[in-house]
């Protein structure tokens, strides 16, 4: 029997028959690992020797003073190896791949962050690796493609559909349907068919475990609110999971893009536009039209630019256990700048959504309160996007000069 799991009305495993046995195998391997007393220890140990775990909790003294509101703490997932929380999930799945005895991994990637993390894991674990990436993203995110290739992965540009993240997922599913015998699909977020949401959330829960312990150690009390950006939902689930039994308010921040009325956003939970649907193996809120066709989404942060969202989050929204908000591109860039200038931290544009929402709320809170922001990744990987977002003239001039040098060399 295909193992399946629902969170409220969301989740499930809407799979083609060809993949059913593969999901059974994966669910079993995950169940085994989880029940294996040593597995989590082994995982934590690997993450503490290969990545930077526990990641630090940074007190944002200057931002706290600036807003005159709550004490602001930042969980530093940006210090992970490869620069984001993605490493937690990918390394964990790598350990499962080894347990299942497979020799190849595939993954989808949008911005390239998850692709680089997967290529890194594949190098470390000695696995073959193919990364599916929408053709548009390949063109836009060349730096990450460059690193994936140098890490030994094959990057496959996907020319179907909108040629972005969701199409890369479809392409990876197609590869997997043909090669499941020796291949594992390293899905990058807490979406997709069971057991992915649960499994990815499990690996990411290391963030929340650490964060709760750290804040109690530092302040002796719990944060009033925890903020995390929400793309697929993995970093949010990761940090939130530490506080499920606490009175802490959990705030998920989606991409508000050009605004919730503009049609240019990726707010599946914070806007009224997301509706329940079934695609890519699972049921959740999607941005879709009345026929159920997925819509194009927009965000300044490629990693939030996705039509679906974790079914676990979808359920927690309906239960009122997590509050969802949207931060607009403009607000995000402001928060990004403020965070850099005040704290010397460069959040990923994704993470900057969490900062933006926290900054909107901080002035109305009191100094006795604590808030915690998850800095899911670092922004220096995004230089092209950031430079473009700020229309940095010096940057364009630099690129034009570089291009002239290259042009001269290509000709000569």
């Amino acid at each position, binding site marked *: *029997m*295909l193992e*399946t799991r629902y969170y409220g009305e969301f989740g*499930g*495993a*809407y*799979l*083609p*028959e*060809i*993949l*059913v*046995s*593969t999901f059974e195998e994966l669910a079993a391997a995950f169940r085994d690992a989880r029940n294996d007393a040593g597995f989590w220890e082994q995982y934590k140990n690997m993450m503490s020797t290969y990545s930077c775990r526990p990641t630090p909790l940074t007190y944002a003294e200057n931002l706290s003073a600036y807003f005159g509101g709550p004490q602001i703490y930042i969980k530093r997932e940006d210090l992970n190896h490869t620069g984001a929380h993605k490493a937690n999930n990918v390394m964990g799945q790598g350990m499962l791949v080894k347990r299942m005895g497979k020799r190849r991994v595939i993954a989808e990637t949008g911005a390239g962050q998850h692709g680089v993390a997967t290529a890194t894991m594949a190098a470390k674990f000695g696995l073959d690796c193919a990364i599916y990436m929408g053709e548009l993203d390949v063109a836009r995110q060349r730096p990450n493609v460059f690193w994936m290739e140098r890490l030994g992965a094959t990057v496959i540009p996907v020319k*179907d*559909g909108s040629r972005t993240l*969701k199409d890369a997922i*479809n392409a990876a*599913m*197609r590869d997997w*349907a*043909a*090669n*499941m*015998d020796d291949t594992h699909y390293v899905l990058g977020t807490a979406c997709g068919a069971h057991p992915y949401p649960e499994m990815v959330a499990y690996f990411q829960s290391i963030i929340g475990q650490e964060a709760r312990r750290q804040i109690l150690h530092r302040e002796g009390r719990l944060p009033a609110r925890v903020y995390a950006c929400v793309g697929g939902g993995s970093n949010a689930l990761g940090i939130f999971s530490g506080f499920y039994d606490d009175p802490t308010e959990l705030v998920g921040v989606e991409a508000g893009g050009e605004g919730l009325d503009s049609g240019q956003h990726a707010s599946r939970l914070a806007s009224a536009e997301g*509706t*329940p*649907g*079934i*695609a*890519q*193996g699972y049921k959740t809120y999607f941005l*879709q039209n*009345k*026929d*159920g*066709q*997925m819509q194009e989404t927009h965000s300044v942060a490629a990693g939030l630019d996705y039509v679906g969202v974790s079914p676990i989050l979808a359920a927690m929204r309906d239960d009122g256990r997590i509050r969802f908000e949207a931060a607009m591109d403009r607000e995000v860039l402001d928060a990004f700048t403020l965070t850099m200038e005040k704290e010397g931290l460069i959040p990923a544009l994704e993470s900057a959504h969490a900062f933006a929402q926290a900054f909107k709320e901080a002035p109305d809170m009191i100094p006795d309160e604590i808030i915690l922001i998850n800095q899911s990744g670092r922004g220096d990987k995004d230089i092209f996007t950031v430079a473009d977002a700020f229309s940095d003239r010096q940057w364009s001039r630099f690129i034009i000069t570089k291009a002239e040098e290259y042009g001269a060399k290509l000709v000569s």
Partner: protein
Amino acid sequence: MLNSYLENKLAEKEILLMTHIVLGYPSFDDSLRIIETMVEAGVDLMELQIPFSEPTADGPVIARANQRSLEDGATVAACLNLAENAARTFDIPFLLMGYYNILYQYGLGQFVAAMKGNGLQGAIFPDIPPEEGQEYLETMQENGLAPIMIFSPTTSAERMRYIDSVAAGFIYCVARKGVTGAETSFTHELGDYLKKCRENTRLPLALGFGIKERSDIEFLKGKADIAVIGSQAMRVMEKDGIEAVGGFIRGLR
């Protein structure tokens, strides 16, 4: 209804042909012309795919057709219209094929009612395994429509029997791992697989994925009941036009 039709047909012919098209590709008018051409060429039943933005189980040829059709503005309503038109016009069974979200958005009850009202005989949703499909399966059966279920080379005998227990019409056997449109080897192994399928269902067997030419169909005789032609017919159409499809189909049997 589908069951008895198949029984009758199978009494006449050693193997039946089912073709697959994507509605609205290259256009709705063309879809109707293709159906007409195929029916005239003697296909025994057809699956009409409602295009979806995320055709995960389809290979490049069909996925692209899904996308084009949507880009040209295909809607579910237009697809149901066309399907009704086909069902009223031609004397073979028509099945809808698509992804489950189409039905889910339409509403299970309404969709099934529409299928029934439109004279369709069943549906194939490749992304709804029986574990997720309880309600769907019941509603289909209650309305006398066949929810076509799928076997694959990775399906265990036990699971085949489980699937069989909820299926109707026929079993769609996926010929190999992978998605539509790639090469399939018509070998001993495929024969063994079909034998296993046969042993684990009471229903006729359709075999799809990768059928391209007469020899493939020849191979299937006695092993499967229905040969499904999908990507290859689309390739012929794309290359040589709708007119060529009739000849291609006739040449298969």
